[in-house]
């Protein structure tokens, strides 16, 4: 390479922490192949290491649906707008199981990839993103089961079904934002890891998984939609079963997701410079 060529290269500036702010999207894009390979690695390992591999991805939604169906169609009955209860629950579990698994995996992603963070430079956001994307693979199985169950119950899809992927993407954004936030906090604060399983349980109960949003009185529904999963699950259900969309709820939840993304980016950017030193 000639001197002129080197001269023409834009130099990399290395400066103390805090001097660089903002999200470098161009750089993130330049590293997209690393994101791809790390995601691929996580998927391969998940299905190679766990003896039951694929079975786990199938059993989890099936068993959870069965348990909820037994409990709630025996003791408590919810108004599910003529949707068979197993279908009602499974449609939400598809979203929930993806979100909770990917958040759990992403929150531990830096601890599990400590050797990468301390030895190589790359945009740190790739680590929780890869963990989130790898969890998306499980979704294939739960969606397959959902389709089988829909066929079994004779659900006739409407054109609204075309919007279903939108809600899956919303769930992905939500999971990525939350997972990223927790991944940063987990590096620094060792108690986050222990608080997470319990928090997720509370969140599950606080989301319209085994009961419908309509169970709440009208005036509380919008406040309830601050829980971003409310709009995602409710919207996903509406698109599957051709029910009317509750746009205010979807709107409030989407707003929540945007706020969560912003918080996540700010916290992450403030903490990432120290990862290699404290991990």
């Amino acid at each position, binding site marked *: *390479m000639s*001197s002129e060529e*080197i*001269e023409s*290269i834009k*130099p*990399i*500036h*290395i*400066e*103390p*922490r805090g001097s660089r702010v903002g999200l470098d999207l161009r750089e993130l894009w330049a590293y997209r*192949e*690393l994101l*791809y*390979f*790390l995601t*691929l*690695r996580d998927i*391969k*390992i998940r299905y*190679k*290491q766990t003896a039951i591999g694929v079975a786990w991805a199938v059993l989890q939604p099936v068993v959870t649906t069965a348990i909820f169906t037994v409990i709630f169609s025996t003791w408590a009955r919810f108004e599910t707008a003529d949707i068979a209860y197993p279908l009602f629950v499974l449609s939400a579990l598809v979203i929930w199981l993806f979100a909770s698994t990917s958040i759990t995996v992403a929150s531990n992603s830096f601890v599990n*990839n400590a*050797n*990468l*963070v*301390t*030895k*190589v*430079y*790359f945009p740190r956001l790739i680590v929780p993103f890869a963990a989130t994307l790898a969890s998306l693979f499980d979704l294939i199985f739960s969606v397959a089961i959902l389709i089988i169950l829909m066929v079994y119950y004779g659900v006739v899809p409407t054109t609204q079904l075309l919007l279903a992927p939108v809600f899956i993407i919303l769930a992905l954004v939500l999971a990525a934002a939350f997972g990223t936030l927790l991944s940063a*906090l987990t590096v*620094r*604060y*060792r*108690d*986050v890891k222990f*608080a997470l399983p319990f928090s997720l349980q509370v969140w599950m109960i606080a989301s319209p998984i085994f009961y419908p949003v309509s169970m709440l009185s009208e005036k509380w529904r919008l406040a309830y939609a601050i829980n971003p999963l409310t709009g995602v699950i409710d919207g996903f259900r509406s698109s599957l079963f051709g029910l009317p969309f509750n746009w205010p709820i979807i709107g409030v939840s989407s707003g929540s997701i945007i706020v969560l993304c912003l918080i996540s980016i700010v916290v992450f950017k403030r903490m990432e*410079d120290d990862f*290699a*030193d*404290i991990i």
Partner: protein
Amino acid sequence: MQVIKVEHLSKQYAIGGTTHNTLRDAVGGFFRRNSAPSLQIFNALDGINFTVSEGETLGIIGSNGAGKSTLLKILSRITKPTSGSAEIRGRVGSLLEVGTGFHNELSGRENIYLNGAILGMKRSEIESKFAEIVEFSEIEKFLDTPVKHYSSGMYMRLAFSIAAHLEPEVLIVDEVLAVGDASFQKKCLGKMREVGEKGRTVIFVSHDMNAITRLCDRVIWLKDGTIRMDDEAKKVVGAYLHEQANLGAERTWEDGDSAPGNEYARLRSLRVCDENGESIQTADIRRPVGIEMIYQVLKAGKVMVPNLHFFDESGTCIFASHDWDSKWRTEPRTVGRFTSTVWIPGNFLSEGSIFVGVAVTTYEPLEVHFVEWDAVTFNVIDSLDGDSARGDYAGLMPGVVRPVLRWENE
């Protein structure tokens, strides 16, 4: 043309004291304003300045804790400086460890792609060099076998082959040649030299003074976070070795936390002794010399092999010795304090200063719990009594070892 420009670069680490390690404390601390944690500040790098020109191969030497790793980490953008700045023109490839991101469950082929991407190679680049990488690594037959079934030699060869095919404008290499068999090391050094000749800029850290003098045009000697010397390779290496010769033959690490080691094992002390167990600084060439290391195993469950490396004044490794004798060769260690002593027979070492590197290693899978180069040094002297290998000859005797051998005459 300057490719790297480093200005007033400093890095401080807080040691001891408490930062908030739990979210609970952090939230609590936010409300209790006057809970200033007491931190000790350690200057890993203290205002260093230098520039590197295009095509230059720069060596960095210095004892452990001098700031070499910190400097490489900052230039590789893994960690940020506390103050000062650096500017680099071109793509930086850093090789601070061989096989970063390798996954045991994945095959050699899968790891080539993964590791290549981690090191910053594009997929198309990996694909075009794939055959070359495989050939260089000599593992063709095992390409689709998970690397967990590889021997550590194969693992290292594959890992280094990938790294050797990285073609950044600036290559940063840390002490990675200390692994692998001699012929492969040579091959790697050759590959690195090629990199240097292609007009790429290389920064190379090593304890192998031979490799440093062979590969580098210029050497920076770091000491306590500052630049002690920055000059032509031979000059700096000579000055460094001269100073190292006065290291001392006995060392103890009082503070358990800063002693070399990790969560599994830490070094406590190392000394040179004679047959009676007395500490010595100077050994008689005819008498056996013992090197006694004391280390603490903090976590049970790993098979640990203590090992020692011996270097002469020119930085040539005379030999290495691993403890394959004790029952611990196959048995996982229990928690506790261990003492291992190796005996070098009399009439074996050559005269002069001997530098000892000490390590405790787990071999399958490879993990170095600690390694301390130039940990102690001692002198071997020949008092010329006529019964050493010299006999009655008092002139120059070449050779890294000096055995007394049996001669037969007809």
